């Protein structure tokens, strides 16, 4: 399960043309949770409080962590475009891939369209269980 302490987070960094996020987490689950929170911040989304939620499973094939992160964020960007957002409950990785279990919620408002998460200068740094990365988004 996601650790809901403050051991993960993001900060928006200035980028000349696009937008960038520094994200960190004290475990892989929290690292991805931070990435998702950061994306929702960049998109300025508001959840539809009255809408029903739906349990959802997202599966991404096994890849290097940088590719997994970009794949995950681009899936989320597509969901936002479809008027939905995903909330991670837990994630499990096997040799074949990674499963994200969570809820799908409707969005009532989005203020900014993020086109894509890019690989520009992307490197995920792992120090013990701590993960950190800088992700540039095309807007």
């Amino acid at each position, binding site marked *: 399960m996601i650790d809901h302490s403050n051991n993960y987070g993001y900060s928006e960094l200035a980028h000349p*043309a696009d937008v960038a996020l520094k994200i960190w987490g004290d475990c892989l689950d929290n690292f991805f949770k931070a990435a998702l929170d950061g994306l929702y911040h960049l998109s300025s989304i508001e959840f539809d409080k009255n809408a029903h939620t739906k349990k959802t499973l997202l599966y991404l094939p096994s890849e290097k962590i940088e590719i997994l992160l970009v794949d995950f964020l681009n899936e989320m960007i597509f969901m*936002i475009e479809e008027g939905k957002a995903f909330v991670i409950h837990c994630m499990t990785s096997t040799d074949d891939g990674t499963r994200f279990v969570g809820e799908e919620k409707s969005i009532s408002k989005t203020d900014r369209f993020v086109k894509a998460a890019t690989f520009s200068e992307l490197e995920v740094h792992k120090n013990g269980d701590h993960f950190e990365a800088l992700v540039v988004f095309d807007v």
Partner: protein
Amino acid sequence: MPNINDLKKISDFEWQLPSSYREDMQIPVHIFASKELLTLALIDKAIDQAINAASLPGMLGQIAVMPDVHQGYGFPIGGVGAACMENGVISPGGIGYDINCGVRLLASKIKKNHAQNQLSSLARTINRICPSGLGNKQGVVVSEFDLEAICSLGARWALKNGLADPLDIDRTEDMGFIRYADISFVSARARERGKSQLGTLGSGNHFIEVDYVMRVFDKKVADLMGLFEDCLVVQIHSGSRGFGHQVCTDYVRDLQNLSQKYKIKIPDRELVCAPIQSKEGQAYLAAMRAAANYAFVNRQVIAQRVREAFAEIFYSDSDNGYLKQVYDIAHNIGKVESHKIDGVQREVCVHRKGATRAFAPNSPGLSKEYQKIGQPVLIPGSMGTQSWVLMGPDKNNEIAFASCAHGAGRKMSRTQAKKSIHGQTLRNQLLDDGIYVEAGSLSGLAEEAPNAYKDVSLVIESVVAAGLARKVASLRPLIVIKG
């Protein structure tokens, strides 16, 4: 990061960073800019990104850097590179996510003074008729069959379906159609996104502007283009929407593990690439061309909607109110062209990212009328400031691979702009200057504030002095529609 002392001054508006600057550079970087703009370009990582592009295999001549350059991802925005067709590479990061993002200019004969009292309702009408904003699904919904036809026929699909007039096609880059597009190389998700977003503007820096022709610099050419002082014109800035974004996302991802296979060293993952002649390179080219054709149709459909808005407001003056196309130009694209490089005529794949084509008279791909004068080049300013209509130089600038700047170029980050500029205040200031603004998001409006961009007149000064293009007319905004 290079500094000004690392550059060799060629002239007051041209600078060169030799290939000896970094070990992996195959070719030099050639910057077209005044000293003032060069100084701005050296602040961020734009020139480092040009150096990275210069390290890609099979790049020929030099990486050309436009005066409006700024940091992007992969190539800099305002970077041009020509890859050898036999042993060069194609890089989606050298073209961008918004494949064939570009600008269309349409001109009317309605005088600004006659329209003054109708500007507010014209702004609202355009905003109502033209869908904009996030992943907008109020576009023309097309079937799989139509999508395939759009991707293979480009703007001619619009003509066949009564959404264009023949002059629109003549006055579009490459007649709005790029050969050898193949939708079978486009993913199911990209197709899905494409089916519901045709004719939508999008958000970010995309816009529709109603301007008036402020000053004509070359009357003969302006007359031929249909530009007359004080008359209303319309600029449309949009691209291939979710369809193109998805194509780029898919291929940047799929090419990630290819560098090892082809033994290509890349300094930045976003510069992933494939040999042009490889099956992966050909697949991306076919998909990218499909997205480029989609973008031509997207701007065409938006243009038709703006025409509807003009017809609704100026119904009593329908002849003068008809919006005649001046030109439609791409500024994020990869195209096979022939250029003289180091004295030899070569067939190359020109990557233009945040740069337009700027062909001289008698160049291939221009309509009969533009063969005589050269290709129109459209350089929008930032909202609230001038935009420019230029034309290709007398003779193609081969150092730039016949390319030109595409805008003012950002100087302030979006984060900084949002912090320092208040959207509603900006909207009021623009209204005080006589500019009506319709915006989907006030914070988005703040990000696009004129202060966030370089002075476009400095860009034009460099473009003209460096022989990239010639002045035809300047435009001033009256209405700005932002997604």
